[in-house]
């Protein structure tokens, strides 16, 4: 662990390796994955098929947020109407019982949709740790090409397997055209 602390003390966020094509990036990702790195990421200008598998990403847990908040939203929607119609402001409408659940289904359904949508949006933001005002990778001018034609792998100094010289050489061996040190 001393190495990690040393490099952090050096004022290093990590290394940014550039690759020339999606294919070389995918192959490099598999190697990084197989080495057991944990604090790393791949950056591409467009979605690449198979990248999740090459990176060894686990399935997202966002669907779980959507399910729980969706069902929760629907339950709250139904409870709210039950409370309003039978407790807060009981009012007989067209001779129907106070708790006429079929009439409450559309609102409960919409509350479920709302809950699910909020679960998706905020689940995503939380998982992606957004919003962030800045990111260390933006210190690299070259990284701007990630929205154009650049394919990158970033390895953080915080990774237990990180070693400045060795990791740099290793990334070059994986086919990186250029490896850059990123200030925090």
């Amino acid at each position, binding site marked *: 662990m001393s190495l990690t602390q040393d490099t952090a003390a050096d004022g290093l966020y990590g290394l940014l390796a550039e690759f020339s094509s999606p*294919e070389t990036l995918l192959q490099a990702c598999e190697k990084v994955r197989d080495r057991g790195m944990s604090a790393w990421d791949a950056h591409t200008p467009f979605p690449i*098929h*198979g990248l*999740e598998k090459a990176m060894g990403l686990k*399935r997202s847990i966002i669907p779980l947020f959507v399910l729980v908040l969706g069902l929760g939203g629907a339950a709250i929607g139904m409870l709210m109407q039950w409370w309003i119609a039978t407790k807060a402001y009981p009012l007989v409408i067209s001779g129907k019982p106070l708790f006429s659940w*079929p*009439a409450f289904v559309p609102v409960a359904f919409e509350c479920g949709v709302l809950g699910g949508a909020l679960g998706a949006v905020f689940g995503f933001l939380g998982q992606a740790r957004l919003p962030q005002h800045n990111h260390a990778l933006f210190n690299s001018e070259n990284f701007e090409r990630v929205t154009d034609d650049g394919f990158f792998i970033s390895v953080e100094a915080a990774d237990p397997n990180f070693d400045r010289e060795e990791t740099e050489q290793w990334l070059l061996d994986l086919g990186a055209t250029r490896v850059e040190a990123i200030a925090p």
Partner: protein
Amino acid sequence: MEHSQHRTISADDLKLAGDGVGRLTKICGAIGILGLLATFLLYSGNHQQFYFSYLVSFSFWLSIALGALIFVLIQYATRAGWSVVVRRLAEHTMATLPLFALLFIPIAFGLHELFHWSHAEAVAHDALLQKKSGFLNPGFFYVRAAVYFALWSGLALWFRRRSLIQDLSKDPLTTRLLQSVSAPGIVLFGVTVTFASFDWLMSLDPHWYSTAFGVYFFAGCFLAIHAVLILLCLGLQSRKILPGVVTFEHYHDLGKMLFAFVVFWAYIGFSQFMLIWYANIPEETLWYQNRLQGGWYGVTVALVVGHFALPFLFLLMRDVKRRRASLRLAALWLLAVHFLDLYWLVMPTLHTHGAELHLLDLTTFVGIGGLFCAALGILMRRGALVPIGDPRLVESLSFENI
């Protein structure tokens, strides 16, 4: 690396080789004929029961063929890539539609047993039926049925024929042509299926009407064809046909469509129910009243649970849609509850106090189903199982869910 490799098809994947399927076709045909024979024997003394049982079974098998037709039209209209490997199976299925024109003949003969509005003396004493007699009269009923079958058969046979010709010509212009015809085809399909469901199912209770009824019937059709496509693919692959052509990615998508149309069915069904329940107009509520009392109440609850709640929760899981056994179970289950749905639409007119199962329910189901499966088997042996000339085939073969 799967992602960069474009899968290709070998010629063996495309043909129904061996006698296994041929034998199966003959067995289906024999079962069908036996079923219809048994139906014929049971007919005497059970006239009304026969016609109602026949209508349920006819609607069930027809809904699969109609689902196949709209499936193919939609794939062309949306220029879908993922579905190309399963589209030909739907094309074979929809080509059974002319058979249903033949199978409709008993319903045409049973008009007076099935439809209250077809009796002149009943209309004479019923102001409401008099108002509707411009539409609900036997002559126009027959003409409409002829138009429906001519249109469906024409569309289905023409699309399949063009697609089969493309297998040899590999001409992308065929796809262009079919794409441009598919959109008006969808409109024609929508109108005819809506009115066919009005004519054959909704008019069983001629005082009752629901503008959502056609969509409700369509939801069942579309659900049924996805279940059938899943079962066809699983059945073929268990015989080592289409290996590597239909992958888990395709099954996953078919499963997603099952899930979507389980929800769609419930959405339409509930919308229809809620508006009628809310407005509380006697002539509208009666139809639901008949299905919410006596023995039919249990069937209604079984539909809500079995056709919506259970499959909704089951198909929600990703792994269910990517495993053969669970997807097969879901497809079989949904076909069973789809049959129950049609039974629930038709039978309360005959048995007002509750479901009464009759041997004719089984014999008509097996009879029509056997002929349908035999026709499908013959059609499948007459052409490739995958549209090899389709320009989007490579895209479909290498399709992956993200």
